[in-house]
């Protein structure tokens, strides 16, 4: 592998790693507040991508119930991205009300909540297939305006072409991470969320309405999933209703690697996994998962609390 390919892979790794990061942040937020892993996160990721596609005026194929349907509006990508992710966030809130809250009220075992989230995932995936079929969908060619399809980071003799979409993804993800970090650490709402993560009972004694913040957490978490889904889909198309499943599993590896419940951990974990995958030679691409989970395995043996987790896990 020459130096140019190496640089290209580095940039690729950062790009995909940054998406892993914002996706994993969603997992981590819910985990910090409720102590559960939301397995429907991957399905919400898929859903966000479909929402954005629909908002951009995309047409649905002939296999689902909504054959050839499309919305009468055609919004620009940036607005669709935000609206689509917001819709995904709202679905997250509904999911919390229907599938998680009743179990929490009864003080059920967290495992039941995990099973319930798996159920939500299956319902969402099958509902998507039922409604819009299993076809691939791609955002319109002018998604990123008149941006050239690739940007050359090298010279004309030794080109290091990077697809522009990768650069956009990296930038958007970085901005989101900064905003979220600011929100959690500097705002009243963020601090209230930290308080609930630390100890829900004490927090509610201090007058924090924990139910409201759980809703907020699910909204942000699902918003992030929808956003990640849209970004990935803008790069490689929506490959069908099962699109988010692999991402869901990868996200788990990321948060465990980074340290469960740690926000910087989710970001670091995402970047590490993204970079490691990028450096798996193309002809062994089938082993990307094996490498990612191999690292996870070693990590669990050597440092079970993850890269940035503490033994006493610091939540949020």
């Amino acid at each position, binding site marked *: 592998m020459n130096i140019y390919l190496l640089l290209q892979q580095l940039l690729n790794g950062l790009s995909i790693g940054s998406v892993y990061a914002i996706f994993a942040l969603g997992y981590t937020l819910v985990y910090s507040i409720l102590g559960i892993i939301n397995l429907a996160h991957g399905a919400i990721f898929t859903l966000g991508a479909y929402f954005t596609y629909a908002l951009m005026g995309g047409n649905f194929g002939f296999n689902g119930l909504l054959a050839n349907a499309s919305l009468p509006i055609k919004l620009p990508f940036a607005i669709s991205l935000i609206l689509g992710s917001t819709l995904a966030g709202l679905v997250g809130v509904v999911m919390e009300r229907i599938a998680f809250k009743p179990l929490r009220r009864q003080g059920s075992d967290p495992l039941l909540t995990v099973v319930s989230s798996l159920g939500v995932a299956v*319902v969402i995936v099958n509902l998507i297939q039922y409604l819009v079929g299993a076809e691939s969908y791609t955002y319109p060619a002018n998604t990123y305006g008149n941006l050239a399809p690739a940007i050359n980071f090298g010279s004309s003799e030794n080109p290091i072409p990077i697809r522009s979409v990768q650069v956009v993804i990296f930038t958007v993800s970085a901005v989101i991470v900064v905003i979220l970090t600011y929100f959690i650490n500097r705002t009243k709402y963020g601090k209230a969320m930290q308080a609930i993560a630390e100890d829900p009972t004490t927090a509610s004694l201090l007058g924090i309405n924990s139910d409201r913040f759980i809703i907020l957490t699910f909204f942000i978490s699902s918003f992030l999933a929808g956003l990640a889904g849209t970004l990935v889909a803008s790069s490689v198309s929506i490959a069908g209703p099962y699109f988010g499943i692999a991402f869901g599993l990868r996200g788990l590896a990321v948060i465990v690697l980074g340290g469960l419940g740690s926000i910087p951990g989710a970001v670091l974990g995402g970047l590490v996994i993204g970079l490691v995958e990028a450096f798996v030679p193309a002809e062994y691409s089938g082993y990307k998962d094996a490498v990612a989970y191999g690292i996870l395995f070693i990590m669990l043996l050597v440092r079970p609390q993850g890269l940035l987790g503490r033994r006493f896990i610091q939540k949020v």
Partner: protein
Amino acid sequence: MNNAIAQTTALLSTCALLLTACGGGGSTVTSSPSSTTNNTATDTATTTGTVSGAIPIGIAVAQTSNVALLGQEQVAGAKLAEKYFNSKGGVNGTPIKLVFQDTSGDEAGAINAFQTLINKDKVIGIVGPTLSQQAFSADPVGERAKVPIIGPSNTAKNIPEIGDYIARVSAPVSVVAPNSVKAALKQNPQLKKVAVFYAQNDAFSKSETEIFQQTVKEQGLELVTVQKFQTSDTDFQSQATNAINLKPDLVIISGLAADGGNLVRQLRELGYKGLIVGGNGLNTSNILPVCKALCDGVLIAQAYSPEHPGEINTAFRKAYTDEYKKEPPQFSAQAFAAVQVYVEALQALDKKSKLNKLQLPELRTQLNKQILVGTYNTPLGEIGFTPIGEVVQKDFYVAQIKMSKDGSQGKFTFIK
């Protein structure tokens, strides 16, 4: 109130779990242990009796998973065939009835679907599965149960060789694939350097790339690189860059729709300007939404052309375009042809010995013999079979993808 919510949740979760069973596991109902049989001893117990009422033909294709793209096209073709032939009187007055079982995208799903169709639905024969990869595992189930199997889209080599009861209407890749390379040479007689890409985790793509690589050598072209990927991959930048650096004039891709489409897109985005030939896995309009405007110009060899003359293709094409508002793809035409082979073989058999007098095992065996001796005038053109069940087809085509400027519309245009 709380109780009500709890009940709803419980119900939802149960539904969800049930859905998992269908979604992930393949067929909706796996046969009970007593009817899941691989050996002949118990087969007789479950397969006696004659066929009364509509004649059941099994359709075992991928309706879920990432292969559903192809499977859904096959379902569309088969359903049109059922409607068409039943409106023409079915099998000498008796209608046919298609029984669908989802194979999902893997081998286990295909085996489950085959066993259910054979033992529970008691079909007279099966059309399926979608992938060659699945056929290598599921076809032996049909062979052991002595049930005719017609592959609608299995094009890897050695499929009919699996057994006496295995045939296919999909011409093997060795016959179809070279046509597209020749068409590329016609468009650019100067072309010299060829880069080949293939999905290494797919039996069909592997078998197809061997043919492509051999064709490249036979045509005196220089094979500059062979790049591998997985059908589940989405990022092809490093393979694409590796290949582009060697300055190929032609890129040949063997993969499936989603990965193939993404590869085409990324090759173009990274600056590749030469010709692209796609294999049979890319031979579906489902790649159009993936690479959009960048699909333009991709050459794909075809075993079917919507413009094929002949009465039955005209009827099929019209029925398809009326229903789905687009030209019928090869996968639908082949599924239609597979059902047609059953219907016409049953008609011929019925004239020799009444179908409702035959015991099911006898009917299946007789039908298998009849299938292999007949010739059929299908939307694919006239087809027949060799004694081992390999399809004999006369006409092949090469199509080139033409996209509108904004990439929203596209079609396969057939070139001479």
